């Protein structure tokens, strides 16, 4: 497969803060790629470099096979962008702004524009100042979905949308994928990411800490195990990959409840050990998406990563 976006070792320094410190990102053509990370991790800085608004201090970036800084104008005929914080011209109506953006990009589809206005329930005659945050966001979304690009860059596009509109947004992204377009989706809404994304990349402090499909990421994460045992749970803590073991007596000491977390690959050994203690009951829970991200957001800082900055 060809890469829609390929970034390697990207660096960007603002004054004394290192916003990007060797970030890697690969987005395959035709996929919906989630771009995740805590606030200030460098997501927006990366996106702005991909749009040619910022000039990288190091590393390489290619968008649709071209240099985003040098070939910005040519490239932007094929790219539609929705910023996280949409500001509009106060004296231009939403309809005018949508048309303006369609003309500024490679053009768009009138019928699709009309259909999107209806689906997003957007009044195109209101002036920029009169729109709420969610409605400003919709103006940018309609302009992006109605345009004829190959790549959609969406930077937290649903902040401010109500749940019904969030649903419409997810349908639209799914349709984009069916049309064969590539989507880079930066988001904090994990249910959205889970529903839409083929693969995700997680960044922290300017470096990519994880990348892959959600299933792959789940395999990298600990499973929680709760077991009710008739015997004493000996030797569990010595097993490799076992964490946070707690033991609580049950039924006035006639049984023990054990809770623990186990790394992928350690489950087999744990089950053997538990079986030796006499299992009365057992539940094993795969990590939720939230746990998965929390672990990546809070985990140890990878070596070489330095300060972050919100941009």
């Amino acid at each position, binding site marked *: 497969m060809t890469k829609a976006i390929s970034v390697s070792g990207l660096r960007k320094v603002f004054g004394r803060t290192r916003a990007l410190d060797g970030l890697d990102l690969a987005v395959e053509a035709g996929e919906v790629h989630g771009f995740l990370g805590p606030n200030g991790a460098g997501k927006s800085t990366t996106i*702005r470099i991909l*749009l*040619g*608004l*910022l*000039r990288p201090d190091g590393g390489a970036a290619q968008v649709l096979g071209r240099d985003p800084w040098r070939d*910005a*104008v*040519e490239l*932007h*005929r094929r*790219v539609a*962008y929705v*910023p996280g*914080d*949409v*500001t*509009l*011209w*106060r*004296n*231009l*109506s*939403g*309809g*005018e*702004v*949508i*048309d*303006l*953006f369609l*003309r*500024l*990009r*490679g053009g768009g589809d009138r019928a699709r524009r009309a259909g999107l206005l209806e689906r997003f329930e957007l009044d*195109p*005659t*209101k*002036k920029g*100042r*009169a729109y709420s945050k969610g409605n400003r966001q919709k103006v*940018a979304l309609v302009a992006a979905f109605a345009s004829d690009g190959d790549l959609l*860059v969406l930077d937290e596009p649903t902040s401010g949308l109500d749940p019904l509109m969030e649903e419409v947004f997810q349908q639209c992204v799914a349709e984009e994928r069916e049309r064969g377009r590539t989507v880079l989706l930066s988001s904090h809404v994990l249910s959205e990411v889970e529903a839409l994304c083929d693969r995700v990349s997680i960044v922290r402090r300017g470096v990519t800490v994880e990348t892959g499909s959600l299933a792959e990421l789940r395999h990298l994460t600990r499973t929680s195990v709760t077991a009710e045992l008739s015997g004493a749970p000996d030797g569990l803590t010595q097993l490799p990959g076992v964490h946070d073991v707690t033991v609580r007596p049950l039924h006035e000491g006639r049984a023990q409840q054990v809770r623990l977390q186990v790394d992928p690959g350690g489950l087999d050994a744990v089950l053997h050990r538990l079986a030796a203690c006499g299992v009365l009951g057992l539940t094993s829970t795969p990590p939720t998406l939230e746990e998965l991200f929390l672990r990546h957001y809070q985990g140890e800082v990878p070596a070489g990563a330095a300060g972050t900055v919100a*941009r």
Partner: protein
Amino acid sequence: MTAVAAPGTARRHASRSWQLAGTGTLLRLAVRRDRVMLPVWVVALGLTVMSTASAFRTLYDTASGRAGLARSTNASGSLRALYGPVLDDAPGGLVAWRMVALGGVFAAVMSVVVVVRHTREEEESGRQELLSSAVVGRRAPLTAALLTALAANVLVALLVAAGLAGLGLPGGGALALGLAIGGAGLCFAGVAAVAAQLTESARAAKGIAGAVLGAAFVLRAAGDAARGGASSPLVWVSPVGWGEEVRAFAGNRWWVLLLPCAAAAVTAAAAYALAGRRDLGAGLLADRPGAAAASRRLAGAYGLAWRLQRGSLLGWALAFAVAGGVFGAITDGATELVGDNDGTREIFARMGGHQGITEAFLSSIAGVLGMVAALYAVGSVLRLRAEETGGRAEPVLAGAVSRLRWAAGHLAFAFLGTAAVLAAGGLGMGLGYGLAAGDVGGQLPRVLGAVLAQAPAAWVPAGLAVLVFGAVPQVSAGAWAAAGVCLAIGWLGPVLKLPGWVMGLSPFGHLPKLPGAVASAVPFVWLTALAAALTCAGLVALRRRDLG
């Protein structure tokens, strides 16, 4: 009954005091935000007044020299129109003559900027919403803004008074002049407070207040040109004229200072009343619905720039046409009074040119229009920065628009728009003067040409603004200083006999004095080339830098 009424009264009472809750905190916030801008403004104004005073002392050190200057000024309607009459020929009187209108305008601009910045700009940006969700009364933001402006104007008055008294001028006159300048500032703080209630846009609010200020200045000029022995009613109508009527160093009519104070009180009261009738963030005029689809012309970076800048271009052109017309119309009647007066001729020769007094006056007005047009030019360039910091440049540049194309749309206004604004002024002035002189066909082209000839000089500060915006965008607002220095040199230079190299710092100092003088192409070519070089350097830097 009383048991019911009492809590009601108490509640009404409480709600009234709540209207001002948080004013102190907002005031401290305003002072903190303006901690650089306001002191610079106050000190610059104070220093200008003081340096004018000491320059006059060395330039006109004899009583006969001063009397000659006063005679020739008062005999010339044109000079009176520009600078006002000399009311007393002692050193203090000359300082008051020179600085009261200019200082008043300067203080007024400061007040407009401060008041709009802390009221409408806060609402427009959405910050006020956050502030007002805290324990902040409905009237607190406007009150804090007005108090900030009041404090700044009091400081201006005290600094001028102390500085002039320190230079040995009479203390009473020094205080009267300081208060006259500060009074004009205070009056326009009130005007700005009203303007900030009318529109949703801070830019439009500043435009409205600026239009009132311009009209007040033109009224005063027309009144002073028309005055015989007594002052004209036109001067009394103009807030800029009140400072003159205080007669600092010439009798010190203290009661006249009540006029700006009363005007400030009335306008502030009107602003509070208007503010009480509207919602946060809203103007008095409701937004009309816009077009559901963009017209054919709103396409690409140029169409967008046209849409964003056409309103301000129209306003400036209109203002220039009116101001040019007024000055053109007073030129003819004013100059016949002069007769053969060497003193006047000398001032005009330095200011305007060497031909007749009429030419010299027309030429100096053309110069003033040119310098004011430089403000428009710089403002049009800095629109780029406002688009960038407002986050509106980013989505445009994420389209298939190069940075050069994006900038070019706005720069067209800075360069061609400035020429258009000057043409409007030239047309107005040519018509006004031509009608008064009974020779429209002969005068209109000369006068129009003379005003249009200012364009290359006005482009130079604009080019500098492009360079600053491209290379060091954080200090973009500093480009205003370049236009301000041109204005100050052009305004004060001729009377203060500033040395040639100082006059030469301003591009306007290099222009031939049109109409009248022989025009050579050389300075126009050089100035245009300089403006072009600055612009190109700025655009090169813009292409290389980070955006946003």
